[in-house]
């Protein structure tokens, strides 16, 4: 059977501002068969998206294909003139991007966008176009397609926007569809519904699809084959189940060990270091971060070798017995906590404005000393609002927050200094939570001066270094500014800033959601370690049930500003007591267990 799309030796470079050329993707071979979904995985910066876009023949600004072909049947998209590409884009190959709102024209109605798209590739006019549009909208599950036609993209929810974007991509019946993180940023339940819809559509129409995602568990639910990229190269390629249960490349294995699991409690293993910025020739790109690297890894260029039926691996140690053990083993350990309440919240109601419904409606929770409490929910559940009220960013309308039995004022500035010290907030986005002009030492010095009168000026430097060490940052970091640090380092610095005050409770607002899995694992383990070592309590807000299961002792499930369930984490996952909790758990894609 000949492939619907066959990528051969594709090599793509970007030209930077200074004129320097950086090779991002190198020598990628990949085949898509009709009716088959190929998952493309890897950390951000591995070249997945660049490869996906380049495969369509699209010439992104600054990007340049140095070598290779992308054969659609017998047509090479790379060599095609733009005029001819226009005849191929749409009817033969289509693309769905991550941000759906951005992919729809905000200035015109859906009807106009569909009409233009359908007119571009068919002779159909008038009523035929309308009928086809309605069919498409119906196929992707947009309710009341008739009314939807007259609406603008901003009038749809995020999930619906992505459905519409998929309908537009499928409008001219392409035989190949390329999807770049199509559900990233959507809620889990929405993601589950869209993925299911998409799987059905692709199978019905016999479309060959390339599905790019950083989420291995998600890919396992939709992909037939799995391709893992690292440093711009394919490092492993196999049938989906094979790749996830018997990975042969240390990188695939490391990704699996870093991925949180909703199936059970497990220690997450991070991958220290960062992926290379450009393709590294003549050696294994992963060697620097690999636990199994030997000298030979950095001296030769390593080819993609077959290790089984349709299983290719780019590693000289692929057949090492150490790689044959299952990558993940579940351990169910629960930490013991004291059980004395530290923070008690009763009947909390929070509003952002008088005209809106409250974001938090009558919430009561408590955090025990030395405990890690998880708060999970989808967007709009009020979990972040709750956290902001506890921190004193916004004042609650009703209800009480008590710390050690003493009621706290609404806003931080109305609270006493030691109360401000006791509760420290760590923000979601590390880029925005650290002043770009302050060095790490400046950032840590301020809370020390304000909250630690016991530390004299002379001891300051040592305290700062101690704090950096406690979050596994080297002392040299002290003189660096945020621009010189990686996302993981920044988030560790943010945690160190919270620790600098010597707090009793650290409030964490989705602090790993902007990070790669490999870094997320490191942060999660750091937090667990800190709690064990210092006895500080943690309130950990997250949308990711896997992370919560890996880290939290007890978990609160929120929806629409209300607590739906509070339970011991293990109990919540094994025997959910609320319908919504079950729904969330079902929507979470799970990795196949060995």
């Amino acid at each position: 059977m000949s492939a619907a799309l066959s990528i051969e030796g594709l090599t793509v470079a970007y030209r930077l501002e200074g004129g320097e050329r950086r090779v991002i993707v190198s020598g990628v071979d990949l085949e898509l068969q009709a009716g088959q979904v190929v998952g493309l995985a890897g950390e951000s910066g591995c070249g997945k998206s660049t490869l996906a876009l380049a495969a369509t023949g699209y010439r992104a600004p600054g990007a340049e294909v140095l070598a290779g072909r992308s054969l659609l049947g017998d047509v090479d998209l790379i060599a095609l003139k733009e005029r001819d590409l226009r005849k191929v884009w749409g009817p033969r190959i289509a693309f769905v991007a991550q941000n759906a709102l951005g992919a729809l024209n905000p200035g015109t109605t859906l009807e106009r966008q569909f009409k233009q798209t359908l007119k571009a590739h068919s002779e159909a006019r008038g009523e035929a176009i309308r009928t086809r549009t309605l069919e498409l909208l119906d196929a992707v599950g947009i309710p009341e397609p008739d009314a939807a036609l007259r609406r603008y993209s901003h009038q749809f929810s995020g999930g619906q926007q992505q459905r519409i974007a998929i309908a537009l991509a499928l409008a001219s019946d392409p035989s190949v569809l390329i999807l770049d993180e199509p559900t990233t940023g959507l809620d889990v339940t929405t993601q589950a519904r869209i993925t299911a819809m998409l799987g059905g559509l692709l199978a019905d129409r016999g479309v060959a699809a390339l599905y790019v995602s950083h989420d291995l568990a998600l890919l396992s639910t939709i992909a037939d084959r799995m391709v893992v990229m690292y440093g711009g190269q394919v490092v492993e390629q196999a049938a989906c189940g094979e790749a996830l249960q018997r990975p042969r490349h240390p990188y695939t294995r490391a990704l699996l060990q870093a991925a949180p699991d909703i199936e059970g409690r497990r220690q997450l293993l991070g991958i220290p270091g960062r992926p290379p910025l450009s393709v590294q020739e003549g050696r294994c790109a992963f060697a620097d971060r690999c636990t199994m690297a030997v000298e030979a890894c950095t001296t030769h260029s390593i080819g993609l070798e077959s290790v089984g039926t349709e299983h290719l691996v780019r590693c000289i140690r692929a057949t090492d017995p150490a790689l044959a053990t299952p990558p993940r083993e579940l351990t169910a350990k629960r930490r013991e906590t004291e059980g004395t309440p530290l923070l008690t919240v009763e009947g909390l109601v929070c509003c952002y404005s008088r005209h809106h419904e409250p974001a938090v409606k009558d919430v009561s929770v408590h955090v025990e000393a030395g405990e890690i409490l998880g708060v999970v929910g989808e967007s709009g559940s009020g979990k972040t609002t709750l956290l902001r009220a506890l921190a004193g960013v916004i004042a609650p309308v009703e209800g009480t927050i008590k710390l050690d039995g003493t009621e706290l004022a609404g806003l931080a500035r109305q609270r006493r200094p030691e109360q401000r010290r006791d509760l420290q907030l760590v923000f979601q986005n590390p880029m925005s939570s650290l002043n770009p002009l302050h060095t790490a030492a400046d950032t840590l010095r301020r809370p020390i001066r304000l909250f630690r009168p016991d530390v004299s000026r002379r001891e300051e430097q040592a305290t700062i270094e101690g704090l950096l060490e406690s979050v596994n940052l080297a002392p040299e970091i002290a003189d660096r500014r945020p621009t010189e640090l990686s996302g993981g380092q920044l988030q560790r610095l943010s945690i160190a800033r919270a620790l600098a005050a010597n707090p009793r409770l650290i409030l964490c607002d989705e602090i790993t959601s902007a990070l790669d899995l490999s870094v997320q694992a490191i942060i999660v383990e750091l937090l667990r370690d800190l709690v064990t070592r210092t006895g500080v309590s943690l309130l950990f807000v997250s949308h990711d049930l896997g992370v919560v299961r890996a880290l939290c002792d007890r978990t609160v499930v929120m929806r629409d500003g209300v607590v739906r369930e509070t339970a011991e984490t293990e109990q919540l996952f094994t025997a959910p007591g609320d319908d919504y909790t079950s729904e969330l758990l079902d929507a979470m894609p799970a990795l196949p267990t060995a």
Partner: protein
Amino acid sequence: MKRIGAKKSKARSALRYLGSAVLTLWVISLLVFAGTNIRPAEDVARQALGRTVTEGQLQTFIDENGLNRPLPQRYADWASDFVRGDWGESAVTGRPVRPAIMPRLWRSLLLALLAALVAVPVSVLLGIFMARRRQKRSDVATNMLLAGVSALPEFVVGLALTTVFAVSLGWFPVDSTALTFGSASDKALAYVLPAATLVILVVPYIARVTRASVTETLHASYSRAAVLRGLQPRLVLWDYAVRNAAVPILNAVAINFIYMLGGVIVVENVFGFPGIGQLLVQSIGRADVITVQAAAMAIGAIVILINMSTDGLSAYFTPKLRGGRS
């Protein structure tokens, strides 16, 4: 139900625009009145009558013009007269102000309109062209040239044009006195250099804004998605890139229209163009308070009209502003 709701919100936003327009006009009137009545009554009278007047003459002038009454009362009288169309008589020429202003106002508006008719299409097309050729050397040079030209004072451009096209080449008259005396063709010629000056000063700004916003929308992911659906580049450029850049471009045009009303004041004085701007500056020099007030209010009213129509058009181009999220 939905349609009624949309209509209601449309009516409400129209009312809001109108309210804000009236408010702006009111602020202008306050400023104009305060600006022209800050000084003591004697000063005003002395400046209007000349230096060699007797105390008695001054007093008569003050009484006749009601200059010794409290300010709020004077403002109320002036404002209510003004709204009713009684713009007063000039203390300097002794003639009613309105007939003196109206023909000049029309000439000034015609001048600004002519300039806009040329400048808007030229600058928008130039901006779109530059956005498509971004990063090329010619684009960088054009951008810098435009930045430089936009910084020039009106009188510098006006005098440069006069020197080249009127003094050296003799193609056009040095000044615009023909508008009052000359034949129809002389009159037409008299508009060319003043209008050209305005065009030169307005094009850079609109072109640069257009370039920046079209560049942004052209690289937006919806434009990329459209290209990847195989749509014609022309369609992507106009229906995706330019349409979604319309609001910033429209605002740039509006800002420049308003700016031109200021520019008209200078340009008219460079070319001796008998418009409202020339009258305004002459009247300030002659301390002709009544005329200054009327001329300033007339210009202010036109500014408001432009602002209102811009708001309306912006709303048309931004679906988000037109109806609520459903």
